[in-house]
């Protein structure tokens, strides 16, 4: 027994798989050329990451050799295997992959110079060639790419050679510099609110990006902070984990209150742009929380979720705006909200009733159809006497809350209002998940037939998911209406449904924190369907990046950024965790069987 296990642990992971390296080199080359032709380098060149060394445009190309080389070098270590000693060969493999990646660009440069394919490929342009040759001669450009690609590939390969600690430090520094640079608008805004402009003026270049010195400071801080407080944080963590349940709950509650309080004061320290941005994120958090109940908890793949957002928005507009073409009661927003919630709930019932009899693909397609039908109804001439058709409804008043009015021109107030509703939505999601209804939803997600056989009335339960999801979306619609002040059918394209779904999937299905993180990352950084994010330069590549992110997530992290423990197990098909007690039992049974 022991002999075999010793033998197993002697097994070394296989050596470098050169075929894999070559494959990665080729894919790297193709990716580089694709990114270049998608227009990212030229489109993003205006945005500095570190001035004057690195712009976002170049970064869009430079990450390829590095990341591909390190990916090509990673191997899965199966249990019982020891990792092979890494050596110079790994560096060579990395360099090869890097070389392959940059060869793609070099080939592209030659092609651009000699042929004109501008017609199908819009970005097949002299600007691209210029950028690729670093504004110098083409020959020099090629040489530079050769060197850069190989060096970065070498560094990527070196990531496996250096000890793990060094590797994580390097990655942390790279990420920190990138994040600080990307979050510039937000950070300047925030620090300005605290009167600390000095700091940001020092670190940032006036027209976007870090100064070199700034980058150095950020890097140094990233290296130093963990050294200084790392052990303390670990201490606190272990202390909290070791606490008895009752006390831990109190600590969690305290943390939660502090966070909530911080969130409430935060808007007062932020500038207009950031408040606006966060308000948009909040609207999507609301939508995503609602969809999370439908998709993440009850497992109903609803691709027409935007319908409820639209109904919420339009109902608010009709009820509050003096310009509403048909019926115009000009109710105050809070009163209108009650009607909106009830009405959207009813619409949820009506759409849900036929839809939930279907399953899987059929259901997804039918919901997609309903989403479009609702939008087309708002757009139609037939109902334009009520909803204004393509002209929409304008002049929607803000929300009068006594001490002031919440309206689009004052993003801070909108953000505060959104925060309140997000808090409500989070509370609702949390309470419902841990209730009889939530358990029934999960059972239906796991196995609908069995849920039904265990006494769950699946029809009613699924309808409830639809209705609760619809109501949360209607909150978002109502705030959206008051914030923008006017409402048109074009705000409710199918794309919105898809983006909300992507937020839920990327964040982590069935997980409240995940959904919020997903919205922050996707809507906050990249931007929503129409709303700009922190990286406004990215807006034309938004869908491309969404798509790439989704594909990558499905392959590598299907459970989302913040995984739900249960879903993780489901998706990774973990082997059964047999504890010692069980093993013992199985062993004795084996003996009985085999005398």
């Amino acid at each position, binding site marked *: 027994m022991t002999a075999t296990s010793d033998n197993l642990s002697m097994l070394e992971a296989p050596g470098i798989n050169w075929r894999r390296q070559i494959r990665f080199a080729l894919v790297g080359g193709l990716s580089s050329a694709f990114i270049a032709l998608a227009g990212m380098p030229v489109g993003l060149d205006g945005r500095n990451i570190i001035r004057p060394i690195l712009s976002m445009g170049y970064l869009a190309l430079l990450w390829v050799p590095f990341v591909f080389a390190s990916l090509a070098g990673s191997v899965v270590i199966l249990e019982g295997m020891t990792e092979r000693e890494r050596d110079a060969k790994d560096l060579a493999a990395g360099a090869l992959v890097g070389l392959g990646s940059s060869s793609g660009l070099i080939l592209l440069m030659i092609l651009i110079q000699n042929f004109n394919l501008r017609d199908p490929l819009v970005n097949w342009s002299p600007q691209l060639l210029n950028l690729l040759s670093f504004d110098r001669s083409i020959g020099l450009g090629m040489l530079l790419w050769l060197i850069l690609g190989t060096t970065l590939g070498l560094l990527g390969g070196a990531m496996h050679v250096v000890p793990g600690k060094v590797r994580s430090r390097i990655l942390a520094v790279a990420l920190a510099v990138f994040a600080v640079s990307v979050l510039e608008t937000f950070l300047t805004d925030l620090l300005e609110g605290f009167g600390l402009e000095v700091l940001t003026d020092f670190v940032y270049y006036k027209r976007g990006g870090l100064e070199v010195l700034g980058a150095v400071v950020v890097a140094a801080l990233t290296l130093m902070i963990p050294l200084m407080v790392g052990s303390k944080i670990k201490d606190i963590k272990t202390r909290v984990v070791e606490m008895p349940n009752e006390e831990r709950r109190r600590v969690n509650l305290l943390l939660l209150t502090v966070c909530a309080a911080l969130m409430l004061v935060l808007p007062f320290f932020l500038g207009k742009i950031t408040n606006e941005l966060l308000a948009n994120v909040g609207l999507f958090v609301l939508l995503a929380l609602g969809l999370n109940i439908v998709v993440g908890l009850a497992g109903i793949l609803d691709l027409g979720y935007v319908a409820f957002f639209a109904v919420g928005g339009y109902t608010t507009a009709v009820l509050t705006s003096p310009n509403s073409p048909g019926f115009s009661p000009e109710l105050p927003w809070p009163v209108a909200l009650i009607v909106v919630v009830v009405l959207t709930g009813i619409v949820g019932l009506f759409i849900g009733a036929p839809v939930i009899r279907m399953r899987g693909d059929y259901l997804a397609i039918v919901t997609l159809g309903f989403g479009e039908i609702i939008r087309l109804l708002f757009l139609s001439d037939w109902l334009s006497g009520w909803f204004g058709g393509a002209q929409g409804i304008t002049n929607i008043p803000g929300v009068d809350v006594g001490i002031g009015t919440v309206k689009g021109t004052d993003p801070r107030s909108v953000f505060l209002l959104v925060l309140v509703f997000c808090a409500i939505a989070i509370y609702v999601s949390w309470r419902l998940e*841990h209730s009889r209804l939530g358990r029934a939803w999960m059972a239906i997600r796991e196995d609908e037939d069995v849920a039904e056989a265990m*006494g769950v009335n699946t029809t009613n339960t699924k309808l409830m998911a639809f209705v609760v999801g619809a109501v949360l979306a209607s909150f978002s619609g109502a705030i959206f209406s008051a914030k923008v002040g006017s409402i048109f059918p074009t705000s409710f394209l199918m794309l919105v449904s898809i983006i909300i779904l992507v937020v839920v999937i990327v964040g982590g299905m069935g997980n409240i924190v995940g959904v919020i993180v997903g919205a922050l990352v996707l809507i906050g950084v990249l931007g929503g369907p129409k709303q700009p994010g922190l990286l406004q330069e990215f807006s034309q590549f938004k869908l491309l990046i969404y798509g790439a992110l989704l594909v990558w997530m499905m392959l590598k992290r299907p459970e989302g950024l913040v995984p739900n423990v249960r879903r993780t197990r489901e998706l990774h098909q973990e082997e059964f965790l047999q504890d010692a007690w069980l093993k013992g039992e199985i062993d004795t049974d084996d003996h*009985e069987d085999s005398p």
Partner: protein
Amino acid sequence: MSMLEIRDLSVTFGGLHALKNLNFHVDEGEIVSVIGPNGAGKTTFFNMISGMITPTTGDIVFEGESLLGLDPSQVTERGIARTFQNVRLFANMTILENVMVAQHCRTDQRVFGALFQTKSFKSEEEAIRNYGEEVLSFFGSRLVGYRLDQPASVLSYANRRRLEVARAMATRPRLLLLDEPVAGMNPRESAELTALIGRLRSEWGFTVVMIEHDMSVVRDVSDRVVVLDHGETIAQGSYDQVANDPKVIEAYLGRPVGSDVAAEEEAP
């Protein structure tokens, strides 16, 4: 009057007669085994009682009321619970949640109670949890303690089978339908579960209908055995009567039904 009575029941799938003119009854407090070769229609028989399949003709009467046309959840609410031959747990829900959700039709708190954490909501949750733990502790220490909050997917095979039974028990049934409860268990585990099946009647008051291939289990617990073949009842009666019935022996391809048993008895 019988607790469950099935009259002239037939089911066809396309041209296949899965069940033909079946007559069957269970009296309160009985433990009845349904046996028969593979594909005889035993699982179909359960699917029909539990409302997952509608019979082509015939009637199912439970405690004086017809079950025809009811949804599976309504059948469960009337007091019939079942387990599945190919274990179908809610794999990503915790063990406790599996038995909690099974009490769905015995409880009635809705959105309002959950959002406002009303007194009745809290006491109901408490009751659901307590009853869940009580049901789980029927299987000794295997499904309780630290296991309560683990997802069902981490359980060993035998424990999954146990949890299937526990989940069915949690619906507070009067009649329990067990579809091959010991399939895939080793002899010791299956002997243990056999004992538990007896206790299901004596301690919990359940009436049990069980499909089983393991003849030693059938012999040990059943009051009555019903043999199905090609969708028809070919024999019924006590274990000994059935085991010696030439029709039954023939149905099992000429192999004496008792041969399993004989093998079992020789082993120790």
